[in-house]
């Protein structure tokens, strides 16, 4: 549900930066998406195509790096991979943990393969 708006935001930022940098063709837009960010990557790809149709970015591809979630147990400090938001520490079974990655949602860079 949110992906179209996010795709539009990606297109907006990428277009702005490309113009600022004098890039005439953007081959790829690289984004980092955490698996707990609330974004469905496939839906974002689809939305990006729709959002860029007939625009400066029409032939640009979106490359998503999906970042796995990791959490740190507040009791025994073990870093583990949680299943969503609902996981006990695999070592001490503590419920108190802090999510240290997996909520990322940002545009990383633009790639222009001919340097222009």
């Amino acid at each position, binding site marked *: 549900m949110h992906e179209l*708006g996010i795709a539009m935001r990606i297109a907006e930022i990428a277009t702005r930066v490309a113009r600022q940098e004098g890039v005439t063709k953007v081959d790829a837009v690289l984004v*980092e998406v955490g698996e707990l960010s*609330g974004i469905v990557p496939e839906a974002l790809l689809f939305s990006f195509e729709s959002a860029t149709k007939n625009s400066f970015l029409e032939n640009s591809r979106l490359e998503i790096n999906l970042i796995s979630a990791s959490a740190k147990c507040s009791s025994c400090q073990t870093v583990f991979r949680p299943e969503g938001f609902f996981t006990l520490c695999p070592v001490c079974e503590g*419920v108190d*943990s802090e999510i240290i990655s997996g909520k990322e*949602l940002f545009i*990383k860079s633009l*790639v222009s393969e001919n*340097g222009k």
Partner: protein
Amino acid sequence: MCQTCGCEEKGSMVTIGKPLHFQPQKQEKKPEKSPKSESSSPLAGIRIDSPAVSKDSVGTREIEVVENLLGDNDAAAAENRKFLNEQKIFSLNLMGSPGCGKTTFIIKTIESLKEEMEVFVIEGDQFGSLDADRISATGAKVIQINTGNGCHLDARSVGKAIKELEIPMNSLLFIENVGNLVCPALFDLGEHLRLVMLSVTEGDDKPVKYAPMFHGAAMCVINKTDLLDYVNFDIEKAKENLRRINSKQKIITLSASGGGGMQEWLAALRTEIQVSKP
């Protein structure tokens, strides 16, 4: 089209109503975007935990951007927070399913705090002003935001509504979000306290099924406890589920429609206001 989440269809608009008991205000219309047609070639890719590196070919240029994709909403939320802090207005973002009892809870809170502080309300609903009308009957000043096809409130429309309400210093502001356990979780409104309501008629498994919402809320109010005898809701199970998702969350059980527990909530609210010292 909502600029942040794109959840509205073309042509719809977010409208901020008139503050009830207040002077009329104009409608706000969000800019529209032209429709895009169906997509074709799937050129794009998804990798897992492998940050892209530029292709080795000569002449490839990678321009670093690093910009948060929820940045525009976050910036508007930060503005709201700054304004509310300056005005010493304590604000709550109340979220929960449709029908979990958010509006009744707000009304009972307003009635209980009448002698203590002035309460203002921003009501978020897709359509209509039924909730704003109910709140208005308490004498509190309320403004309705209609999101049209939108599924949540965003910081920018809340910021406009805050200005329209002209809230005096040291007041309390309730923001009742659109009834939805998914989308509102992503959008900071600039509130001091994020509160999620779970009613016993919904089931004790909701925190597990809608984990991001419950993970992000500092407080959870379990409502309609007067119905516990009639529904299949295990309150200890619900609390255990909440603790597993957010072990720091404060949990309050009550029945806003008169079954008790409101005093505990009011005490917790007073503590929150004291601690945050907006």
